[in-house]
């Protein structure tokens, strides 16, 4: 007892204890230093703003001073009854459905054409078809505004005029019933290459032997595609559907510039352009927050539902 009182050196056991505590302390410090900068930015600019908007959406707030005028769910009722918002919702859904039924099948068939079998200039085609992906949306919109302008010397009208006798120039972006389809065509021009690249990557993961074996067994090309290639491409297809749906909902710049702020007469308004025009530019931040919350709700319900029900097996496979 008296010896231990005067002991200077610690026992090996105690030494190990302090060492371990020290190492744990070092590790905690390391983890903190490495995670804090990134995570605090994420909280500051992603999570906190998103949560705040639910609170602001209950106020009539023009952005000056703190929000004080509490109006319960008035912003939501006004929003859901606003006919232009309804148009915006319908337009966004239309873009989504067109993307799924036209853009993705087109991208898939091109990936099969370019990515499978022998093809001269495979790399060239891939590069050209993918290049619009790197153009900014503003540039894309400006170029296409010219291509589609009602002028008879503009690209599309001039081309049709050269082919069709007595062709009258068309104002492609001026018809409120078709403007959304024109917008979709331009979006396809810019984005199908992106999906094609994803499909090509997926196809590369499918061993050619499997398809050859099916052919040797007498399978027609269609059967090979239907029963071998497409099922094996399943996880890629599910991913592109996910990205395509989210992508259609978040369109802003291209639509805004191409259609001159959602025109004609708000016929091509989308959720994001509506939010900008009726919430932000007029500094109706409470009302805009309600739009943002509805926007989140749609995105969240879709994302979570889709990942839970459809993409789940893809994670399990990994």
């Amino acid at each position: 007892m008296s010896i231990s009182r005067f002991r200077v050196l610690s026992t090996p056991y105690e030494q190990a204890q302090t060492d371990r505590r020290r190492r744990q302390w070092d590790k905690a410090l390391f983890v903190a230093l490495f995670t804090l900068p990134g995570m605090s930015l994420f909280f500051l600019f992603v999570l906190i703003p998103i949560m705040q908007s639910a609170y602001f959406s209950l106020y009539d707030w023009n952005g000056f001073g703190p929000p004080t005028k509490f109006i319960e769910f008035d912003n939501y009722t006004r929003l859901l009854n606003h006919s232009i918002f309804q148009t915006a919702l319908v337009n966004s859904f239309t873009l989504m459905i067109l993307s799924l039924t036209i853009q993705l099948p087109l991208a898939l068939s091109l990936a099969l054409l370019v990515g499978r079998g022998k093809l001269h200039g495979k790399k060239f085609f891939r590069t050209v078809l993918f290049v619009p992906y790197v153009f900014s949306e503003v540039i894309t919109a400006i170029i296409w505004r010219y291509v589609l302008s009602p002028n008879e010397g503009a690209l599309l009208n001039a081309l049709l005029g050269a082919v069709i006798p007595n062709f009258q120039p068309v104002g492609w972006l001026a018809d409120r019933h078709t403007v959304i389809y024109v917008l979709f065509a331009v979006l396809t021009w810019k984005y199908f290459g992106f999906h094609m690249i994803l499909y090509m990557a997926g196809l590369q993961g499918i061993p050619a032997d499997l398809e050859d074996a099916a052919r040797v067994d007498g399978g027609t090309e269609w059967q090979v595609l239907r029963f071998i290639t497409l099922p094996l491409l399943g996880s890629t297809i599910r991913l592109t559907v996910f990205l395509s749906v989210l992508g259609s909902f978040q369109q802003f710049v291209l639509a805004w510039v191409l259609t001159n702020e959602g025109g004609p007469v708000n016929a091509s308004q989308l959720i994001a352009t509506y939010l900008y025009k009726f919430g932000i530019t007029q500094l109706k931040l409470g009302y805009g927050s309600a739009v943002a919350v509805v926007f989140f709700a749609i995105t969240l319900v879709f994302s979570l539902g889709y990942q839970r029900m459809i993409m789940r097996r893809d994670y399990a496979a990994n």
Partner: protein
Amino acid sequence: MLSQQRQPVQNVFKYGFLIALCLVIMGPVVTAVLGSIRTNGEFMTTPFGLPRQGIQWQNYGDILGSRSFWNSLFNSIIITAGVTGLNIALGSMLAFVFSRISFRGRGLLFNILMIGLLFPLVVAILPIFIQVRQLNLINSMFGVILPLVAFGLPGSVIILRNFFISIPGELEDASYIDGCSTFGFFRHILMPMARPALLAVATLQVIASWNEYFLPLLVFTDPALWPLPLGIMQFQGQYGTDYARIMAYVTLLIIPAVVFYLFAEKYIVTGLTGGELKG
């Protein structure tokens, strides 16, 4: 045998279709570039055609001689460099912790970060705008750079984490036996090895931040801070129907984008496909 007889016909169809599609893709771009070296009158009457009245360099001269173009270029470079650098630095640190260090709450933290994948920047634009105002970052470069970094982080962390996980643990153990610290392993062994993944993340960030329009539109009320996408919109507003001049501006932005793309295609593709498609 049957399929061999059909081959030439199929090929004609196949190449014909692909070439037609390439024309649809390149047509508008080529006309824009051609338009930029012709007079506005020529451009508006015949969309394609060579410059009969001589190459109109002054379309470019006016832009290259203006202060606002160089100013916008400078702003774009600042934003792009800032976003890409910060994203790589913070993203690789997070990915390192999430892939190679186990601690309590790691899974929870990672899942919280992954919530970010559900919300693209556009969806959250108003809340970000309000937050930037509250933090007094309106008309500050940080007001654009920091939110862009925050929204890019989840995607970068996923790509980098997948790469870090694939590096064998024996390598890490060996480096510790040789006296390396955790940070030393990260800095001197892991980061150099992760170059392809880092380049993939960097190219995606460069494209996204270089092209970003919405956030600077809201945050910068001062035109002196505008990056190129806003600059060209302002220019378009000024010159209205002088399409030739607008196309010169468009061409000035397209050419570097295409050159960058040709050099970085491999990394873009790796980044988008999580490394599955070889360049």
